[in-house]
């Protein structure tokens, strides 16, 4: 999978004449490669991921996925990308609070069609969350929720893992475990990763991209 940003700049940065590795520049995410996008708060890390995932279109410039302009992608193509090629750990986690951990994990399309949850259960065990399997997400701490969100994104096939500040509420031990889990899954799937963090954070073995 190859994703290209060509002279992309959010409308809100128009007046700043901003130039970085991504904004108002050419930037390419190659298949299987690892990137860490970092920069101070407010420099558009979440916007960058939203453009990449096709959630927002408030920018000028062009984004291509496998050579095809992103605006030309049909809904069915997006569904295929989101369900089979790209997986995401959202900054706001995007968990359904009223549902249990297992029900949230079952929302992944493969699971929703009756896919085996055993892989997800193993990951829960690995991150010390096995007892929370049937608990409602609203009863968990933010750190625990973050681990559920990480597991949900990893228990499906993918070519690119997109993470938006995934470890922000984890202690060092849990962060290390999560990093190990992600490393293992990246190897299993031969997948790439794009990870955004605040300045100063260093995880995994990543190519540094500055915003």
């Amino acid at each position, binding site marked *: 999978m190859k994703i290209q940003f060509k002279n992309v700049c959010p409308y809100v940065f128009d007046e700043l004449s901003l130039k970085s590795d991504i904004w108002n520049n050419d930037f390419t995410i190659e298949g299987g490669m690892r990137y860490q996008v970092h920069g101070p708060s407010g420099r558009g890390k979440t916007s960058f991921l939203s453009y990449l995932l096709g959630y927002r279109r408030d920018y000028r410039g062009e984004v291509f996925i496998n050579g095809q302009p992103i605006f030309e992608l049909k809904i069915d193509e997006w*569904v295929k990308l989101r369900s089979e090629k790209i997986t995401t750990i959202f900054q706001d986690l995007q968990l359904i609070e009223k*549902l249990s951990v297992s029900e949230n994990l079952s929302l992944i399309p493969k699971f929703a069609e009756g896919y085996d949850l055993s892989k997800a259960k193993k990951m829960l065990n690995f991150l010390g969350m096995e007892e929370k399997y049937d608990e409602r997400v609203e009863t968990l701490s933010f750190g625990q929720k973050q681990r559920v969100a990480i597991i949900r994104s990893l228990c499906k096939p993918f070519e690119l893992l997109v993470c938006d500040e995934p470890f922000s509420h984890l202690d060092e031990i849990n962060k290390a475990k999560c990093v190990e889990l992600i490393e293992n899954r990246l190897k299993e799937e031969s997948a790439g990763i794009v990870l955004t963090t605040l300045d100063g954070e260093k995880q995994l073995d990543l190519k540094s991209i500055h915003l």
Partner: protein
Amino acid sequence: MQKLFFYKQNRFQLFIACFGCVIGLIMLLVSIQLYIKAKLYNDDAALLDENTLIVQKQVGRAAHLGIGSPNFSQSEIAELKSQEFITTCSPIMSNQFEVIVEIDDPIIPAFKSNIFLQSVENEFIDISSTQFDWSDSSDYVPVVMPNNFLIMLNTFLSASAMPQLSESLISNVKMNLIVGPRSNRAIIPARIVGFTDTFSAILVPSTFLKMANLKYANTQNQFQSQLVVKAADKMLGLLESHLKDKGYESGEGQLFISRLKSALSVVLVLVICLALLTLLLSFIIMIQYLLSLLSNLSFEIRVMLRLGHSIYVLKNKFLRFFAFIFTIVSTVSIISFYFMSSAIENKLISSGILINKTISVWSVVSLFVVFIIFILSVNFYTTRRIKAQFYC
């Protein structure tokens, strides 16, 4: 996924919408059923057919003194035709020579009676124009018999201790029309091809009557003392007051039936409108319920789309739920409708209005149409709302 989408719903609002739908559907089905039954009631004298009246001038003292013609002039006919509440106005042609009907069949005792012949345009008679046609080469004159004539004949047969005749049997009886004065009399075979409640004279094709008036009365002047007039739909009242203003009259019985037809038609159409209004209101509540459900679930829908679920799969969850709800609503409605219409029909039958007790296919069709409209609406609104969440 079922749990995810329906844990936020307001069941009270759904119940109110379903209740309204059931009431509206029952009213719609019953009113359509009654409307169709009324339309088909007694085929010839359909209750809701256009209102046909036989109009003549009022007979006053002046007529006895020979002042004022009982005939309608061309200008008077044209004036009637120009009225917006009259769809058709046509003169009735009458015989101007002596006519005797003679039944010449071994199954009936000899019967002779002086009669009147009349002729009207074919559109007023519910018989195909090929059946009711006459030319010089025809073997017989087709006639349309007033039902009253059959009653009179059967009274005569009863008095003669003979079995009575049905409509189909009398159609095969041999009969003759004896026409003209003694000096120029002819016997012409005739055959009954239909019956009428609207006209009280025997009807024959106009081609025959024109020929006979010319040949046996030696006149081309047609007396037009009666007109047959059709009132436009729901405008019988205007026609009545116009006839009164002009000094014309119509049979009271005929007018009463016409008034009854108009009133029944208006009432049934009003009930159908009321049913549609009730259905529309409950439909709006149901769609509002769907929209508020979709609004409350916008976060959940967005999460599902971001995780890679297709719009089609999500939409189908809602569609199946509402199809299930509406199937229950339809089932309750059709069962209630069946019992209600049975009760109404039993009441009508016991009151002497003989109607057949079958479910009108149009009621079932209307239910099907409402179901399709509902499903299409749910499909449209759901797809639109889910699609709006796809790119955000």
